């Protein structure tokens, strides 16, 4: 296996880091969270990301995208996760693009993907329903008069809301939800918008058909992206922690010279290296060996969940009281990690899927 980054990927990573360092420092993030013009901060970032082509990174060149793969996107999403950007890129550039490319008919792709790639159209996709958990087969077997989708990312600012519905048995469809009702729901992760979206069946405009397996594949790709964001965030938490314990002095020495601190920092690094491996592996599988996607995505998510929560907790612990303050950014990473832990399946869900695949249940 070859996990090394090629020249373009190194460039993508380094330029993304530089860009986000300038355009999305903690002060901008805080402006989004606290200030009246919070939405403006998010929109300004989106425009600049669009200039860089990020919303179309996965979109094929046929639809004016960059035509890159999940591995490239994972490299980028480590950086966007490190910077705690809001959810639009994930919702539009990954989830909605994957859903359209996987399930929508040619006309619909022609119609929507170029604008999505350009960032002009912010899209999102609602898949799960109240009570469905994270298992597509648990979606309502056919649409009632009203379809309700839960955990829809970034719907509030989306221009195009897609619904992915089950159509009986293993069938599925993708549709535009016109005149949808959007109700905000709030998670621990205050950096991301989440909604419950309701649409009457008559307002659904079907764009294509597929299978439940297609739905799962769309989510598995989004899962890998989320895992990449978590690992990028974890790496940033470790950087912040290393910086702090190098400089914080107690008992006349840097606290980073105490074994108890050193060994926890070492554990953070071990988790991050392991998690990064899981993400790169799964991203490569998504690009090259889609038959293994489910298991690889579960390996990535299970590992990223464990790493991100543990690194988030340790980061606070090693900052001592300071880490417990709102002012420090650490809690934003922990909350992102803890909220993401439950998104697209928690660790138990993914381990169950792996166990099932191994014939153990």
């Amino acid at each position: 296996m070859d996990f090394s980054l090629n020249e373009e990927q190194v460039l993508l990573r380094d330029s993304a880091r530089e860009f986000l360092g300038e355009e999305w420092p903690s002060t901008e993030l805080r402006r989004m969270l606290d200030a009246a013009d919070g939405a403006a901060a998010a929109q300004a970032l989106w425009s600049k990301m669009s200039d860089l082509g990020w919303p179309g990174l996965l979109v094929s060149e046929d639809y004016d995208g960059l035509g890159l793969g999940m591995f490239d996107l994972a490299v980028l999403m480590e950086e966007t996760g490190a910077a705690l950007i809001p959810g639009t890129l994930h919702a539009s550039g990954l989830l909605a693009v994957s859903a359209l490319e996987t399930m929508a008919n040619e006309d619909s792709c022609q119609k929507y993907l170029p604008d999505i790639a350009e960032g002009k159209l912010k899209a999102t996709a609602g898949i799960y329903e109240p009570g469905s958990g994270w298992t597509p087969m648990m979606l309502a077997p056919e649409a009632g008069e009203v379809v309700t989708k839960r955990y829809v990312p970034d719907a509030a600012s989306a221009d195009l809301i897609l619904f992915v519905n089950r159509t009986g048995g293993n069938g599925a469809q993708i549709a535009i939800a016109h005149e949808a009702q959007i109700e905000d729901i709030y998670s621990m992760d205050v950096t991301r918008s989440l909604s419950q979206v309701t649409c009457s069946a008559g307002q659904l405009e079907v764009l294509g058909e597929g299978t439940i397996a297609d739905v799962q594949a769309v989510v598995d790709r989004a899962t890998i992206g989320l895992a990449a964001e978590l690992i990028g965030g974890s790496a940033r938490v470790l950087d912040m922690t290393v910086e702090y314990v190098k400089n914080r002095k107690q008992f006349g020495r840097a606290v980073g010279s105490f074994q108890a601190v050193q060994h926890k920092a070492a554990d953070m690094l071990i988790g991050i290296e392991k998690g990064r491996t899981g993400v790169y592996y799964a991203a490569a599988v998504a690009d090259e060996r889609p038959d293994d996607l489910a298991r690889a995505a579960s390996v990535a998510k299970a590992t990223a969940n464990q790493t991100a929560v543990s690194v988030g907790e340790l980061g606070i612990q090693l900052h001592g009281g300071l880490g417990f303050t709102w002012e420090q950014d650490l809690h934003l990473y922990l909350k992102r990690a803890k909220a993401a832990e439950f998104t697209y399946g928690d660790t138990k869900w993914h381990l169950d899927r792996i166990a099932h695949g191994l014939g153990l249940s």
Partner: protein
Amino acid sequence: MTRLQDTPGEAAFRERLRTWLEANTPSIGKHDVDALKAWQRTLHEAGWLGLTWPAEYGGQGLGFREQAIFNEEAARARIPPGINNIGLMIAGPALIAVGSEEHKKRYLPKILSAEEIWCQGFSEPNAGSDLAALQTRAVDDGDDYVITGQKIWTSNSLIADYIWLLVRTDPDAPRHKGITALVVDMKSPGVTVKPLLQITGEAEFGEVFFDEVRVPKANRVGAENDGWIIGMKTFTRERANISVSLSVRLQQQFDRLLDTVRNRDVPLDPQQAREVAQAYVDSQCLTQTCERMADRLFGFESSVVKVAWAEMNQRLQRIGLDTLGPDAPLLSAGGFDQVGDTTATFGTEALAEDDESYAKSWQFGYLRARANSIEGGTSEILRSVIAERVLGLPRK
């Protein structure tokens, strides 16, 4: 020999208390300061506070057993949170141990009645685990000290009338030798308090700033430059008292966990059920360990209980949160008196002080528990205390 049952005297005490609590326990939100003060006064007037304090200062002159029974029954009755815990658990006992007769007469009764709320000013930005590095300066000026500096992580400082303070009186002495303990009126000119917003969105702690604050020398506790020892005694007392109340809090949290999982629509899978059973084992063992080690809890062995509690509570809060399933991280999911709406707003506003459902949610519990292994001595420091002071391992 009966180990599990109360003695006849204890049983009578428990019965009286239980009956009283059943009749008198109100429901008060944790931010309703006036009501919480009134509740403490009611408790005090009924004779249930200061159980182990001498009668001459308003206490009941009883033993540790009665205090333990009070803790158990209070947990059982889910009484409201204590508004003056620093006074009752830290400053009061410290004054009883080292204060002058005058101080005891002056301060202790009003601690019990909640007429005066106390806070404790030990930690500073550069003196956390390494408390002896504290820099808040007290300059000798005739009958007064003039105090300048900053304290941090001061619970209750936003509502406190008095602060139990450690200051540096001799900057030239070795670190541990130039520290003095004082009682300072929080209304003194030059004292300002700034709330310290935490990751939970609450400001349970504050930062206290001293800008040339004049404090009469009569407010000194113990001799000048004797503050380190007094501080250490306060600490062991703090940890002992915390230990006892911790076990009660863990019991309450476990009951809450049980409520949550029993109210689920979907039954727990075997692993989740075992996680809850493990929390039962942990909470049982912690409570009983506090009872078993009661006579050692004023020594360094209180660290054993504190470290164990921090990790048990962190685990328990995580279990509570994780068993909620896909909605786990959503605000207002799974509080034990969940209001069921999703009206919280984005950002810090979501965490407004009066959002009781959030304050009782597992999200809040999970986040708040992150501090358990930091406050009252980090688990790292306390494990070294256990190793060196209890097990006798070499310091270097």
